[in-house]
């Protein structure tokens, strides 16, 4: 029963990962390579692996990234949280995908937006990792609070309900206000940095949406299943 969930999550993750791997192959690799021409010197004296290795490994990394989200979010988290996630069918999956995006990328990027190669950040790696981890935790908290707010306002008007659900998002303004300044310097033109950032954002959104879509298409489990239990489930 629970293994069905893991299996469906992994399959959806691989499907999303393949789409995302294609994105890395067609857009990510070339975009990153192009931006590297703005880079004066690569920290450790240049990459130690060939261009081809980087290309292939990065595509593979994209596939595994999808598998990771598939197993963690749609295999493990979905099994436990399914009764609590708003909506049904594809909406339910998209709600979880949105929560996943917010946790892994959305919240952290408010303070630490994606930086193209060739841009140096003032904050040290350790500090940024700590902030990233903290913002992931906050993103998860906001997602949970939004879910709770949605459940608690069950008998209210739709507009009230949506407003209450969106309210926890305001919490995200706190770290944005408190975060230490992280001035960056590099020769990448601002417009190109913006294009790169939005490419990254859409890439992650496509990944999550694909996993959610495939997971919904794989179906199953809107009706609480009661197999694999030793005791009879119908106790009435």
């Amino acid at each position, binding site marked *: 029963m629970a293994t069905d969930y893991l299996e469906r999550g992994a399959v959806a993750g691989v499907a999303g990962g393949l789409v995302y791997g294609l994105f890395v192959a067609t857009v990510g690799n070339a975009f990153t*390579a192009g931006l590297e021409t703005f880079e004066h010197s690569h920290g450790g004296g240049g990459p130690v692996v060939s261009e081809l290795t980087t290309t292939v490994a990065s595509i593979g990394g994209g596939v*595994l990234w999808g598998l990771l989200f598939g197993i*963690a979010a749609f295999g*493990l988290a979905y099994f436990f949280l399914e009764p609590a996630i708003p909506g049904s069918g594809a909406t339910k999956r998209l709600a979880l995908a949105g929560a996943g995006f917010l946790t892994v990328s959305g919240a952290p990027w408010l303070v630490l937006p994606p930086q193209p190669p060739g841009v140096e950040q003032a904050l040290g790696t350790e500090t940024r990792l700590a902030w990233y981890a903290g913002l992931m935790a906050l993103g998860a908290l906001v997602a949970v609070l939004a879910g709770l707010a949605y459940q608690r306002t069950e008998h209210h008007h739709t507009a009230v309900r949506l407003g209450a659900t969106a309210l926890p998002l305001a919490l995200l303004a706190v770290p944005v206000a408190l975060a230490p300044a992280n001035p960056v310097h590099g020769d990448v033109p601002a417009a190109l940095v913006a294009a790169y950032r939005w490419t990254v954002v859409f890439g992650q959104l496509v990944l999550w949406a694909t996993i959610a879509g495939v997971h919904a298409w794989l179906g199953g489990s809107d009706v609480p299943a009661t197999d694999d239990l030793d005791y009879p489930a119908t106790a009435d």
Partner: protein
Amino acid sequence: MQDDTDTARATDSVYDRIERARASLTGPQIAIAVALVAALGFTLLFVQDPMLHDSLHNFRHSAGITCH
């Protein structure tokens, strides 16, 4: 019909899911799932071995994770 759905929903909660996982999963199964997630995340993001780190460079930038 409406009642049926409501009853079904009332008997299915996050708590029930945890109970169900306890009843139907063994410790090693859970350990494998958690280890798999941890291993994937660690390999993709934190391994500092230059070979692996550099070869995943484009991926990390495409995913919006920067480390330098």
